[in-house]
């Protein structure tokens, strides 16, 4: 399997404190990599460094073998890297369908066609398909702000898939979602992974969710990689149990 993402020796310092202190890992095509670790271990900062939201103090990120450190998030997105945020980030005034169209419109045409071309940039069909796939069909024309938290969380994830990304980074997709919705979400993520061959990196606190969803797990502690392996290996790793699972 080829490497989609190569992260080498990422460091991020805020003042005198290292939030991320030399993290390296690879992500292979088609896998679902889980990243776990106690609060404040630098997971979200790591994501932000990979995605251009923050400039890493040191280190390098490669996408398909090409260096992408320093690119802006919108450039990375157009190269096929998509993400969600820890906190819910949908656009409450827009309808569900409009949110999804927005999520892919910059991948269609150019600035001119987006001004004088079709209002939906030809994406209504794709959006409705995605809406159906995430079982939100009855809500397509509702404003996103009127949806329940779990439904918004599904929409948030669906937006990340609208542009047909190769690599998706999900920051705590299960946070605050009830059990039924969680099953729904997991099932959808696995389906996308199988059907479209999309590669995932998932930050998550919910252990059951990570262990049942991911094909490989990386454990961070104090800004460094503590352990790496299959879900079963991680569960059995004494260092991990001491640092994290033991709590």
């Amino acid at each position, binding site marked *: 399997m080829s490497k989609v993402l190569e992260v080498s020796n990422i460091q991020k310092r805020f003042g005198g404190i290292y939030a991320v202190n030399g993290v390296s890992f690879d992500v292979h095509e088609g896998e679902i990599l889980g990243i776990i670790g106690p609060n404040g271990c630098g997971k979200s900062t790591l994501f932000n460094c990979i995605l251009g939201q*923050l400039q890493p103090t040191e280190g390098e990120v490669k996408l398909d073998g090409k260096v992408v450190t320093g690119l802006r998030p919108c450039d990375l997105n157009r190269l096929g890297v998509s993400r969600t945020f820890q906190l819910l980030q949908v656009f409450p005034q827009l309808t569900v369908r409009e949110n999804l169209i927005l999520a892919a419109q910059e991948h269609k045409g150019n600035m001119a066609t987006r001004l004088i071309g079709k209002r939906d940039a030809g994406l209504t069909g794709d959006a409705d398909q995605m809406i159906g796939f995430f079982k939100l069909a009855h809500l397509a024309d509702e404003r996103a702000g009127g949806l329940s938290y779990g439904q918004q969380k599904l929409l948030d994830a669906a937006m990340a898939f609208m542009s047909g990304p190769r690599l998706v980074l999900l920051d705590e997709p299960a946070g605050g979602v009830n059990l039924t919705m969680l099953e729904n979400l997991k099932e959808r993520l696995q389906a996308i992974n199988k059907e479209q061959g999309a590669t995932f990196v998932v930050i998550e606190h919910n252990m059951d969710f990570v262990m049942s969803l991911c094909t490989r797990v990386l454990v961070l502690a104090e800004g460094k990689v503590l352990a790496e392996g299959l879900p079963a290996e991680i569960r059995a790793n004494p260092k991990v149990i001491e640092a994290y699972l033991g709590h």
Partner: protein
Amino acid sequence: MANLVNLIITGLATGAIYALVAIGFTLLWQTSQTINFAQGDFVMLPAFFMLPMLHAGVPYWLAILIGVILSMLILGYGYKKLLVDPIRKHGVLPLAIAGMALSIFMQEGVKNYTAEAHVFPALIPNLDFHIFGAVVSAQSIAVVVVALAVVIALQWLLNKTLVGHQMQATAQNSTVARLLGIPVERMVLYTFLINGALVAIASALVSPLIFAKFSTGNIMGMAAFTAAIVGGFNQVRGAIAGGLLLGVVNNIGSAYISAQYRDAIPLLLLILVILFRPQGLMGRAEERTV
């Protein structure tokens, strides 16, 4: 050279007044994220509290004192309770826009009352004396001395008293301050009262120099914004430095650069600082949160 010394000293005098106004402006921002777009008019108004009393024969010091107290009540307490508190929850921008409306409201109100420029008595009689060949007006010195005294008193309040420490905690992180049991709301109110006092003092100091008129707020407001931004928004000493710098630069500029474009100097200074050092000359950079 002698002329330059004179320009610097009178510049410091107006700069010290700008500094007082800018300090109040930044205090409101720090404790409650209030951008007071009417700050200039806050300086314009107290003169009109004091003038009728002075005309009625009330002694100078008493008139100033009552003016300061009225200003604290109306421009401090009233402003906070009637305008800031109801709008703050909507965010920074609506509050800033409400300030613009308040500015129009105050200017029009005073204009309806009197549209003329009024002479305002000075702190001390105008005497000139000579230092090293330069002519220095005693009034300029007096303004600097009073402003300095106010700043020292304020610094003492902020740094040496319990209330001052609580106010600083509120300014730095109101959430943590609240957790520590500091009565945040009352601290915010105190900064509004302090601002009310500062603008009234500035009003008494500046009105003898530029007359009391409904439109003086435009100049004072722009000067306060510029001083606050040039010095740095998140620190009192930034506002002081910004105010003094602006006063001197303004004065020297108007002497050596065409009179037509002297107003452009602070504007250019403002634009350059915002573009190249948005945290201000003395400020710390605020970490951008994602």
